[in-house]
């Protein structure tokens, strides 16, 4: 993979991030009442309001002064202060909620990659068979279900109905624990249904994509060669088809990882999981624009970085690109 290719990709990624920052700025500054919100209070006199505005630089012209200030601050990771959580920097607010989301998404991705790829590979290899139709059908249905459509029935059946798991939250509200293992157990109990929801949702997508990728390799000439060699079907799938199918799949997985963080919002809402998703919704109803802005930036940058990583990983994996 040539250095030139790499530099190109990096430059593009950088430009994209610049565009994101710009959009972010315009978007949230354009939001009605966003500037005055910083200083709004019915008890302030006009003079005090003007003072605040001046202190925060809000009386400066939007472009270029405010923009430049904003870009500078963003690049130095100063994302401002939350409206709702007075005094807390946005980075801290987001940081506190990042953990639960990462745990949920991280585990969900691991499970769904393993299960989804296996299902898809097996299904795509036996294209047209009963197993394929059933597997493909289930995958399609899961893929068409938003997280909350998967989650709500799960709650009804397993939480409210059978009572095996709690209906919401990450930990039991107001609980005290004798030991860390008790806390861990409580956490795990709360994790099961949200994790199942996210996993099922992702399995749908991965199995469909893997199925298509494997089915495509099946038609390739090197598979015919492998059959001519008298290799067993299983060996051909594992040793020949799978590695080739994984090339596009790795790219897809990497890119998907970028999106998934933002996409789990609805899953978090259903289970009231204290992550970025619920933070977003809370910030929406509290009109907490700095936090929303921070989340926007974080999610977009994550996707850009994920795309970059996907490109590089592909370049490392595919011997045709390596040289």
């Amino acid at each position: 993979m040539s250095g030139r290719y790499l530099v190109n990709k990096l430059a593009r990624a950088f430009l994209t991030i610049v565009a994101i920052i710009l959009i972010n700025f315009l978007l949230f500054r354009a939001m009605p009442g966003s500037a005055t919100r910083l200083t709004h209070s019915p008890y302030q006199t006009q003079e005090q309001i003007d003072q605040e505005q001046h202190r925060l630089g809000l009386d400066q012209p939007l472009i270029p002064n405010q923009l430049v200030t904003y870009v500078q601050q963003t690049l130095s990771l100063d994302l401002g202060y939350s409206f709702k959580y007075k005094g807390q920097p946005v980075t801290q607010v987001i940081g506190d909620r990042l953990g639960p989301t990462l745990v949920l998404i991280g585990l969900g991705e691991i499970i769904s990659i393993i299960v989804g790829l296996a299902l898809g590979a097996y299904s795509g290899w036996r294209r047209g068979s009963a197993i394929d139709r059933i597997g493909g059908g289930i995958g399609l249905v899961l893929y068409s279900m938003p997280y909350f459509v998967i989650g709500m029935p799960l709650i009804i059946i397993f939480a409210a109905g059978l009572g095996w798991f709690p209906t919401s939250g990450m930990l039991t509200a107001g609980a005290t624990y004798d030991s860390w293992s008790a806390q861990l157990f409580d956490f795990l109990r709360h994790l099961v249904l949200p994790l199942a929801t996210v996993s099922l949702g992702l399995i749908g997508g991965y199995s469909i994509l893997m199925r298509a990728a494997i089915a495509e390799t099946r038609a390739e000439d090197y598979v015919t060669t492998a059959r001519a060699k008298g290799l067993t079907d299983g060996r051909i799938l594992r040793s020949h088809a799978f590695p080739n199918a994984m090339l596009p799949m790795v790219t897809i997985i990497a890119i998907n990882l970028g999106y998934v963080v933002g996409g789990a919002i609805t899953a978090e809402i259903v289970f009231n999981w204290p992550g970025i998703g619920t933070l977003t919704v809370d910030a929406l109803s509290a009109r907490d624009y700095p936090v929303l802005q921070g989340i926007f930036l974080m999610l977009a940058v994550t996707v850009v970085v994920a795309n970059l990583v996907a490109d590089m990983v592909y370049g490392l994996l595919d011997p045709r690109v390596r040289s």
Partner: protein
Amino acid sequence: MSAGAVVVRRPSRMRGLREFAARFSTRTDGIVGVAILTVFVILALAPALFVGPLENAVTASGLPLDPPSAAHLFGTDELGRDMLNLTVHGARISMTIGLLATVITVVVGVGIGIMSGFLGGRWDAFLMWVTDVFLVLPNLVLAIALAPILLALVGDNAELFGIRATLLVIVVVIGLTSWATTARVIRSQVLSLKERAFVDRARVIGTGSGRIMRRHILPNIINLIVAQSVLTFAYAVFTETSLAFIGLGDPFSPSWGQILNAAQEAGAPGLLAWWYIAPPAVCVVLVVVSFTLVGNALDDVLNPKSGSRR
């Protein structure tokens, strides 16, 4: 072309509606999809015909959160409104939003895709970069951010085609976030068409760019556009449901997502009010799956790719 080709290598270009109908009729998945969609389209066109006017808090016909019964086949919501009534009306709203969003997506996506693919060079590079930027924007957060802005622009109560501004915001947001994928798909097809001889020949005789785009490239990608549109529709309904669930919908025009939002707010899952959740959920899944099936079937029939060569 050798007429004695024994193994069907590549179905020849489609000629006419009859051949299309014949090919499509072999796809059971496509037919099932069309059948299901037809039902929903009929319901969506005239919901009042089937279940009467949309019930609201005032005209609610039943007790709050009543399970399904003879009087209310799907039970009632927390305001006592008949779920069947809500669900059928929801079809109209969800499908209309989906349709409008698809139109925007396809028009913008195809336009940019053709231009980018055909013009090439710097234009292509620039447009693809713009596409990249839109592709990385986080859907839901963007919607959350845009909604109040757009509402402030047009005023809370503006209406277009009888659809309130809040819902139009969703249409715009879906369009903004999904045109990029369509543009890429169209662009790659245009790129491969550009390589084909007939475009070069047209150029050599001096045909202008615009004419080439219209008369040579466009007809060859109509098939792709059709298949893509159907798949976009699936995505649009899916996304609308999610956006409405988050709270960006319009409580007065409850789409399926909005109904589910209300269900969540009312605590339906915890209250075991499955009838509040099942109808809109099942409808969403049915519609999205059907659109996807039809879209894939169309794609296979209209854009044949050569299979195994042996």
